[in-house]
């Protein structure tokens, strides 16, 4: 009989994401655009965007106040991610 092998528990981290402008209504309105996300360790900014249902590129993002050019940038536990939608006219 084969010994039962435990799968290693997937390590999670928690980040905070804030969506600006009309993007904020992707989340329930009481959130006012901000929520915590549990993501597997090693997740990137792009993964966080996907998790809230956005394309992983084409939006402006910042992590802990610093503008990010590559959404492949890995996140760390406790990071604060800001997401801004580029504006068209109006």
């Amino acid at each position, binding site marked *: 009989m084969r010994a039962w092998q435990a799968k290693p528990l997937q390590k999670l981290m928690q980040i905070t994401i804030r969506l*600006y*402008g*009309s993007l*904020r*209504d992707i989340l329930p309105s009481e959130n*006012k*655009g901000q929520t915590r996300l549990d993501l597997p360790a090693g997740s990137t900014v792009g993964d966080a965007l996907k998790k809230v*249902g*956005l*394309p*992983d*590129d*084409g939006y*402006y*993002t*910042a992590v802990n*106040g610093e*503008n990010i050019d590559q959404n492949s940038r890995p996140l760390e536990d406790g990071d604060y991610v*800001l*997401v*801004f*939608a*580029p*504006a*068209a*006219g*109006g």
Partner: protein
Amino acid sequence: MFGYTGKILHVNLTDHTLEIEEPPESFYRDYIGGSLMGLYYLWKHSPAEIDALDSRNTLTFALAGPVGLPVSGQSRCTATCKSPTTGGVADSQAGGFWPAELKFAGFDAIVIHGASDTPVYLSIIDGEPKLHDAAHLWGKTTLDVDETLKEELNDKKIEIAQIGISGEKLANFAAVMNMSNRAWGRTGIGAVMGSKKLKAIVVRGSQKVEAADKKAVLALSKQGAKDLEPSGMARFGKYGTAGSVMGQQGGGGLPSYNWSSGVMETLEEAEAISGERLYDEILAGAAEEKQDRKGRDTCYACIVRCKRVVENEWRENPLIPEYGGPEYETIATFGSYCGVSDLHAVTYANQLCNEYGVDTISCGATISWAMECYENGVITKEDTGGIELNFGNAEAMIEMLKLTLNREGFGDVLAEGSAKAADRLGKGHEYLLTVKGQELPAHMPHVKRSLGLIYATNPFGADHQSSDHDPVYHPKLYEGKPGRPGYKKFLEPLGLTRPQHPKVLNEEKVEFALKTQYTFSAADTISVCQFVYGSSWQLYGPQDMANLMEMATGWDMSVDDIQEIGRKRLNLMRAYNAREGLTRDDDTLPRKLLTKALKGGRSDGIMIEEEELENAKNSYFEQAGWDQVTGNPTRATLEAVDLGWVADDLGL
């Protein structure tokens, strides 16, 4: 004929006569309505190279077939004349209920000739036009005039287009207002109407608009209602254009401190003037979380409801719902341009502008120009009459605005607009943000490169609603993702298949600018709202614009036909400017943008390269079929858009 009333009212203010023209259907097919029709009358009735405030300047308010139908985004009207700001064509659109009501009153357009010696107003009630004395309205603010006329004509449902006190005083950026909160804002049309001593145009009627295919119009309407949520347009309606403040800040595209930076210094300052903040705190009903019901307004039959209604106060000055709330542009010009992060003050500035009738873009940008002059010692307290006009000083901004609206003290200089003010003072030119004499709107070509080309070349000055903006052509946003379709859906039918990054300005991007410019140009002619039918807004799109025009008129319409309509209007505008003496040399950007890099945020260090702009112009003129040296349409191009007679007139 379907869609149209078949009647055009000619008003001669010099001798106070009225005449009704009933053009054949072929005229409507050739000149459609809106901007294109207005340009036709301007060309035919005004001699070349007159001063814009000359009585011979012809001012037209024109609609097209779809206006007044029960579907979103059709109540738009274009005003056209020669511009006192640019010396070229003046062209501006407004929505609200007035455009549809003009159709119900029985007319497709009003063409105003001459000038009256004394103030008058025009009423058109159920097909009956009449001129009235307006001495009692002269000097009154917009809301006051609205209330007086409703009482006088004993009808609360009349719709009123009017100039405010600033139009009477011929301020260079005077607007024509309707509902006291919608504006034909840009290019100084209010000053032209003021020079004619025409205070207001009242419309009211019950004539139905006959669509060629009523059922199809209803089906389109139903489709819109179904798509409102999934398309994201419900969210646009919720925050209005103000919802884009933070996106601009995040991208380094929020013009701040008279365009010295693309960001407000701190994120908190930008958040303080954001559309979210406006929604949460200042919209009517915010205290009870009933903003969606009380704090939003619309245009005739539009389900998007993107207009703001405010109810609050700034330093004991009430913020009155009737004056509406600030759009993104206004938040930027009175907020970030001036470094002011007090949204209540910005909302109050918006109210004052609507009360006196001025373009919030040019007016706010003129004040931010004066602020930069003040910060650099170019103007001093002696000039300003003691006002400390530093960036960020909300009280000083409001003080200076009041002086400008009343043309008192230094405000009399600023009412000329920044370009003429700099000339009058003989200084401050290095801080100007003007193209063809008109101030820049609040989208930055540093981060949306094709806008620089359009700002430089657009016939009525730098404009943010004359073409689509670069981010929608970003490869990822173009493609979208499953469940969230990208902009490809709308751009591909226009022949735009080569998406590019926002910060490049190559041939593909020039193609994007020109082809979307045709689409926007068509919207301004067919008289539909760009937020509903433009190429990047998702409720309807260019195909629906073609369909709607076909439903309204019964004429066959494809997306290509729409593009051709837009192309014809753009060519006629450009030809008009050529007639008035403008050339490629006028197609440039403010020196400041070409010589000073931005500071801070995501656009830190970016400057517009003159060589890049000139190369883009070459490519643009070539793609448009215009002469490389003059930038003017050639005979071949004019003939291709059925404007051979224009080439004849120009002696080409």
